[in-house]
């Protein structure tokens, strides 16, 4: 089915792909490793990725990164561009850099160790993306999917993402790299015993009802999952800045350079994740989705509505709840300390009071780049 033969209900997607760049890949190609001069070893654990000419190179990027670039170039040349999230929606990490430093200078390491451990575990759970049910997209989308990121989700993209996050076989992934950064910076700190209790707290929230009941459940589910992960991955950039700066500060970190570098490697590895998700969502956005009752919905309508909903959830109510919960945790952690109320006063004074920049009724526009 040629794209030109269709009348997309979404944004127009003109002619075929650029002739010079390949856009079809096997799973083996998308998982292929560059030839590293030396591996990355962190805290005695062999991690993924490695070094070429002294520079860190992310794992499984030999073909994956050029492939994503090719799919994006095609989108930019032919269509409305690639979806993006405005950084104004990005909630800052809590506790902030200054708050974290204040605690560490006062000898309060537990909340930061807990925070870093939780980040490592959440990173690891990124591996669940390989288990996301992917429907037959060729039956769910009107236009052709040849040579798209969408047609490669289960042919290497999700698997590479999963391996990057949780590690694979004898190699550590981001989970183990965050742990290594934590252990380097704080000299193998004792992990608070309540980490899992806090992570599993408040679960069993009701699942959101479908926004588009006429779409096959798995199709909306897949788009929502990709949108959710993409927003999280984009917002994680602030966590990386926070981590690099905090763990790289010799005043509070025992191995400032090594710990900070480790976070920078993870940050570099996340780029392919953000980019393939942006690409796949943009490809849906400029196509037409088929409904269970024989109708059609423009992909743009679906992607934009789901992204807006995700942004409101992830960037507005959750950070507020999370900040309140963390505030209580930190208060409990320092309760036994001398001058704890003074420390808490200073800590609270450093809170920037960030709030989501849109009210309930304001529309959220999806950026393109």
């Amino acid at each position, binding site marked *: 089915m040629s794209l030109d033969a269709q009348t997309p209900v979404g944004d127009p997607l003109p002619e075929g792909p650029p002739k010079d760049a390949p856009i079809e890949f096997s799973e083996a190609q998308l998982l292929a490793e560059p030839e590293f001069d030396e591996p990355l070893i962190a805290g005695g654990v062999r991690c993924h990725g490695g070094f070429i000419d002294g520079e860190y190179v992310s794992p499984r990027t030999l073909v994956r990164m050029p492939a994503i670039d090719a799919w994006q170039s095609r989108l930019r040349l032919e269509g409305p561009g690639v979806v993006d999230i405005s950084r104004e929606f990005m909630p800052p990490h809590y506790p902030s850099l200054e708050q974290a430093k204040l605690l560490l200078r006062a000898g309060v390491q537990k909340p930061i160790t807990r925070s870093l451990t939780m980040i490592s575990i959440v990173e690891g*759970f990124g591996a*669940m993306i390989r288990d996301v049910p992917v429907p037959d997209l060729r039956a769910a989308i009107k236009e052709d999917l040849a040579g798209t990121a969408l047609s490669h989700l289960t042919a290497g993209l999700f698997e590479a993402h999963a391996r990057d996050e949780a*590690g694979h*076989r004898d190699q*550590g992934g981001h989970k183990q790299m965050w742990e290594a950064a934590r252990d380097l910076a704080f000299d193998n700190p004792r992990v608070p015993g309540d980490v899992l209790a806090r992570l599993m707290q*408040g679960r069993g929230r009701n699942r959101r009802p479908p926004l588009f009941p006429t779409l096959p459940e798995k199709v909306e589910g897949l788009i929502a999952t990709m949108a959710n992960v993409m927003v999280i991955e984009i917002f994680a950039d602030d966590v990386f800045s926070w981590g690099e700066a905090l763990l790289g500060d010799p005043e509070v970190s025992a191995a400032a350079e090594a710990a900070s570098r480790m976070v920078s490697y993870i940050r570099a590895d996340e780029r392919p994740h953000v980019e393939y998700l942006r690409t796949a969502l943009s490809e849906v956005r400029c196509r037409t989705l088929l409904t269970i009752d024989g109708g059609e919905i423009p992909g743009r309508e679906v992607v934009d509505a789901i992204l807006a909903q995700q942004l409101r959830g992830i960037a507005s109510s*959750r950070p507020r709840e999370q900040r309140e919960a963390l505030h209580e945790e930190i208060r409990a952690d320092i309760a036994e300390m001398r001058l704890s109320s003074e420390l808490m006063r200073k800590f609270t004074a450093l809170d920037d009071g960030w709030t989501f920049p849109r009210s309930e009724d304001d529309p959220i526009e999806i950026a393109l780049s």
Partner: protein
Amino acid sequence: MILRVAERVVRSALIGYAAGSVWLRYKGPSWLDRIARRDPKARDLSAIHQKNADQIYRTATRLRGLLIKMCQVIGTRSDVFPPAYVKTLSQAHDRLPPREFEEIRCVVEEDLGKPLDAVFSEFETRPVAAASLAQVHRARLLDGREVAVKVQYPDIEHIVKTDLSSVRRICRIYERFDPQPMELLPLLDEMNQHLALELDFCREVESGDRIRKLFEDNPAVVIPEFYKEWCTGRVITMEFVSGIKVTDIEALDEAGIDHRRVVQGLMGIYTRKIMAFGFFQADPHPGNIFIQPGPRFVLVDFGLAKELPEGFGLGLFELMFSMMTFNDQSMIRAFDELGFETKTGDKSTYVEIARRMIDRSESRRFEGEFTEGMTDELFEAIRENPIVQVPIDFVLVARAFALLSGIAHTLGHRANVLESMAPGATQLRS
């Protein structure tokens, strides 16, 4: 007194007879092999294992008490015992003929210090459930509240002590005669500990209260309230909460309850208890779990509630997480953290077990599920590498997961453990 002594002699004799038969079934062929200059180790013992397991099972169901518990323990130790034992003895469920009501009435009146009708306006003489140590009756308090009354058998402590000392004596004799004995005494010690927990009803009430508090943020978990003024060391009076037995497929269907959500919800509750709280019911068999529409999960019987050592939950999390994300190096570190030990200190055994589990997971695309098959495989791998010492807490947890997997299997679904361990990822990264 004379009756008690006679009973004690009969029980000891029956236990001794069964133990002697089991031992001779192994030793007889082995002696014959030696005479015929055959290698006794080359003999296929599976038929003998089965015969012995059947005899132990028959004796246990006849004598009940401790022996039923012993069967249940052996039935979970696939790391130690051959499959014939595990399969046969794990059938020794807590479903037994009830005791006479008069015996039960005596315990209740003695413990509450009042006649039955001074506390209850109604008390059903037929129990709703009967197990090896106690039975449960439906009743109504004078103020009209409907209750379930769990009553310990009057002589159970005595029976347990008698059987325990008989079995211990037999184990000592066995160890003296066998140059390479299987280490049975530690298993008895473990059982002794569990029985002490299960016979202490005050502790059971405390454990139930604690689990209710831990799940106060989750309305889907229902723990019946205990009416403390009517609870003693042998009697528990609690709110009567109705529900459908978790494996009653027909009733679940009639109530329109989604089996998949039951399986996943149950796994989520246990994962949280074990890994996050380090405190869990080690005995999640179907008779202890009831389902209400929602689904809501009614949990009863906290006799075998177990506190796990600090750090164990995180270690277990790492082990399961690494297995389900195909990371053998992390799995090996987790074995260490959990307290697994090799006699030589050599870690290659862990590598072998880890690789075997990872290969199994990856080749079958198991998508985060932890099935009965995986538990069996893990213990088979451990049994085939006998230098590994398995921490007892791990065995208890594996048993709980195996029981849950069994429930999942009955309901025709698999629980995704990875999903049940997962946090609300977005809450954290943002």
